């Protein structure tokens, strides 16, 4: 289910979503090219302001792009070259908005029936179909509830039912789990995955949460500042992050050196005050420290060692300065460096003692000095 | 110039007291006519000032000073503005503040304790309200009479010829409401003529009725002769015999318990002098 290879015998150019568009805003432009096959889920991930939601709104017909060609199962939704533009109502799409945007004055049933009613389905028939959909998603017992009486998970399923009842060819989901309490998230995500699995059309999902993206999507698109910086299966993206953002997203460090780019997990790091024997050790400065259970999470930046006496390390394999890295070390490993009585605020104690103060130089070495592709193991 | 200012300020007071009669204010032509009318009328007293002084009546007492407030019926707006100017010429130290409005409303205000020195009413009934309350310093004196006249728009589109036409329901007719003096007077005239009127509207005062004529919204209205004259060419007046049965008398009296009773008495007396009577006659009033 990687979605990159069409598996059916249908003509490839006519199935699923093909979209290429460009949106220009003052100080921002979004350029996106994507292809989503029926029955697959593509997740667009990226930092805030990357243009994820804008991309979704272009596909929904709620934002007019500068140039665009969008087709769904061979039907042109918009084409700036020929001037074709279909309004949202005529796109055969279903949208689940961030915060769901359930109509506050209508019951769950009437929310779900809304699309059918708008298209002229008789009231009783629309209500029956809405009930069926709510039953299918396991919330038939809430059909008389108003949106404000629903939990986040229930509201999400009502929103999903409202979109799916129209049997769209393309389902667009904008941060579908952002409004769910953390403790319910696992269950709600699993239900959503099930619903998406049953849905036969193409799905585009926008999220800032890498776990949601990894677990729900067949294909990831990483969007940064309006540009695609990486795409591929979740596994491939996780294994080989192409940018700092992706590396951070999947919890890895990305270090560029003259010899190439290495990735490694924060727990694989070791810190020392004096230069270790490890020839691959990198000189860094401390940016900040936070405590994480029994461990310390140390934010680092590679140091500009050019011209500094005493830091002439790795002369053959220099690392450009200013790269942001994270090291996770045990408290014990630091006590070895400088014993300080453990207290309720150990990181503050260290900082006070002059160790791991912001701006302080430290040496970072990894368990994989060759820059192996990380499959993070506990050190 | 000063007269014009007096006219405007007194109108703005009226505006506060009586929202309905602001009507005339909004019609620029009417205001202009009123101003022109009062300055024309005011030319008479200047020449007769000497006569008044020679007659040595109470109003020529040179020691008078202070401020007096004169409440007068709305139909006296033009003539009393001119009379106040003439009075001022005789007694430069006296400031006359004029306040025009519906007689009934003014009378209620006086009974309720409004600071008024002289009251000139458009009917004996309204004056009686004040007299009954024991608020007149001296018995009221009738200083003018007014009679009804039919007002029709220029060209007389409704082809109204007399009081009989007021019974024709095919014509648009404006009357004063029976609660206000002009309406009460009209009722007497209709009774005398044996006509049952078929009005479209019962206006809250005579100016409002006249405005409906000026705008051509009605074919005829029953108003005072003085209003027809004040409106100039905007309306045409038609006299009718029965108007003699419904003559309205205008009484005036100083109000008691006021500090400046000497000036108040002087003003009330001045209204009966030939100088003031000329002004009133020019405005269409009949002598008492």
């Amino acid at each position: 289910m990687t979605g990159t290879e069409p598996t059916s015998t249908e003509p490839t150019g006519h199935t699923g979503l093909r979209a290429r568009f460009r949106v220009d805003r003052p100080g921002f432009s979004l350029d996106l090219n994507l292809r989503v096959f029926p029955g697959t889920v593509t997740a667009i991930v990226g930092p805030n302001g990357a243009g994820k939601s804008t991309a979704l709104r272009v596909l929904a017909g709620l934002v007019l792009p500068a140039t665009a060609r969008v087709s769904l199962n061979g039907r042109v939704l918009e084409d700036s070259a020929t001037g074709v533009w279909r309004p949202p109502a005529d796109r055969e799409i279903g949208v689940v908005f961030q915060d769901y945007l359930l109509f506050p004055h209508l019951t769950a049933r009437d929310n779900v029936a809304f699309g059918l009613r708008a298209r002229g389905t008789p009231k009783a028939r629309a209500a029956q179909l809405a009930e069926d959909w709510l039953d299918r998603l396991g919330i038939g017992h809430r059909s008389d509830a108003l949106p404000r009486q629903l939990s986040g998970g229930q509201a999400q399923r009502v929103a999903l039912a409202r979109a799916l009842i129209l049997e769209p060819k393309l389902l667009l989901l904008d941060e579908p789990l952002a409004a769910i309490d953390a403790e319910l998230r696992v269950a709600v995500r699993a239900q959503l995955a099930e619903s998406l699995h049953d849905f036969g059309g193409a799905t585009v999902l926008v999220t800032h949460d890498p776990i949601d993206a990894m677990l729900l999507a067949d294909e990831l698109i990483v969007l940064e500042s309006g540009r695609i910086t990486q795409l591929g299966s979740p596994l491939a993206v996780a294994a080989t992050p192409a940018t700092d953002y992706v590396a951070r997203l999947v919890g890895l460090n990305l270090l560029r050196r003259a010899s190439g780019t290495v990735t490694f997990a924060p727990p694989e790091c070791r810190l020392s005050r004096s230069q270790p024997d490890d020839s691959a050790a990198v000189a860094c400065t401390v940016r900040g420290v936070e405590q994480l259970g029994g461990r310390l999470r140390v934010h680092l930046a590679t140091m500009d060692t050019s011209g500094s006496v005493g830091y002439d390390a790795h002369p053959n394999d220099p690392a450009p300065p200013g790269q942001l890295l994270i090291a996770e070390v045990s408290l014990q490993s630091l006590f070895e460096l400088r014993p300080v009585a453990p207290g309720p605020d150990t990181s503050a104690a260290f900082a006070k003692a002059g160790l791991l103060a912001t701006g302080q130089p430290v040496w970072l070495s990894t368990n994989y000095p060759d820059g192996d592709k990380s499959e993070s193991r506990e050190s | 110039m000063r007269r014009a200012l007096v006219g405007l300020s007194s109108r703005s007071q009226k505006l506060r007291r009586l929202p309905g009669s602001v009507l005339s204010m909004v019609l620029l032509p009417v205001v202009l006519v009123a101003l022109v009318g009062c300055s024309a009328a005011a030319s008479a007293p200047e020449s007769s000032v000497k006569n008044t002084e020679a007659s040595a009546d109470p109003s020529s007492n040179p020691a008078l000073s202070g401020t007096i407030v004169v409440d007068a019926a709305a139909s006296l707006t033009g003539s009393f503005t001119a009379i106040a100017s003439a009075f001022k010429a005789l007694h430069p130290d006296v400031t006359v503040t004029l306040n025009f409005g519906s007689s009934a409303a003014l009378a209620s205000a006086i009974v309720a304790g409004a600071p008024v020195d002289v009251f000139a009413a458009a009917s004996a009934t309204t004056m009686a309200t004040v007299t009954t309350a024991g608020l007149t310093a001296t018995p009221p004196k009738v200083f003018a009479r007014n009679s009804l006249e039919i007002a029709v728009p220029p060209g007389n589109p409704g082809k109204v010829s007399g009081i009989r036409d007021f019974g024709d329901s095919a014509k648009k007719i404006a009357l004063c409401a029976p609660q206000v003096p002009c309406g009460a007077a009209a009722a007497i005239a209709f009774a005398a003529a044996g006509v049952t009127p078929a009005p479209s509207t019962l206006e809250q005062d005579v100016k409002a009725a006249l405005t409906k004529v000026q705008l051509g919204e009605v074919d005829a209205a029953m108003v005072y002769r003085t209003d027809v004259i004040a409106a100039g060419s905007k309306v045409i007046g038609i006299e009718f015999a029965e108007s003699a049965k419904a003559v309205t008398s205008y009484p005036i009296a100083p109000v008691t318990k006021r500090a400046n009773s000497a000036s108040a008495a002087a003003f009330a007396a001045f209204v009966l002098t030939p100088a003031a009577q000329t002004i009133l006659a020019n405005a269409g009033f009949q002598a008492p």
Partner: protein
Amino acid sequence: MRVSKHPSRVGTRVRFAVSGPEDHGVGLPGVLWLPAILALAFLALPLVALITRVPWATLPTLLAAPEIGTALGLSLLSASLATLLSLIFGIPLAWFLARSGRWPPAVRRLLRAVVTVPLVLPPVVGGVALLLLLGRRGLIGQYLNAWFGLQLPFSTAAVVIAETFVAMPFLVLAVEGALRGADRRFEQAAATLGASRWYIFRRITLPLIAPGVTAGAVLCFARALGEFGATITFAGNFPGTTQTMPLAAYLALETNPDAAYVISLVLLAVAITVLFSLRERWIRGVSA
């Protein structure tokens, strides 16, 4: 973990439960109590004064007068029709004002000024303006008269028109504010579900702004019920046709103040009852 504690991230559920325990401790600051009480007293005491003057002994007799019933019925009918007209025409106008984002700001300012004009115009002037437009010699009225024989002044229709003219701005401004405050994303959600613009307006936009529409309609009805100046000027005053409660009260004040107090009391009682019950019903209808 922190996400769940942050209200805005919990989304739908918290969004609608806006009032609650958070209000505790941020009530009215002490310094505002005095002006608030003074304001309330200022608004309420004139009514108290009016009520103290009501002649309770003769109240039944005065209330039994058929004119009061007629005037009350006409007042309720015309104010209801004026509110209905304001809803039919005012909501679309409010929509244009609120959603005219692409128009030049100058045009929008001008439009809003035009809508506000009846609020600042003295009602009597508004009545004259209506006469000049719709009177039988008015800009439009002359053709209505010539082509259809339609004469609006002095008819119940004229009362409704005058009240609508004066009261509609209240509704338009209230609805415009509600539209500006409404979350347009709901309309977008409806559009993706295949709803036409008209369907979205009826089924989404209108229910969402219902509280604003209710508030506007209540203000509009209240203003129409109390309308005096524009009505008496444009529609005139005739019992059963154009004499609404405020007109009856005004004219009663001329001769029979007791009756005027009674009429005012009835108007007050009816207004409070109607506004209160309407408001309760509409608000319940929206939230249930």
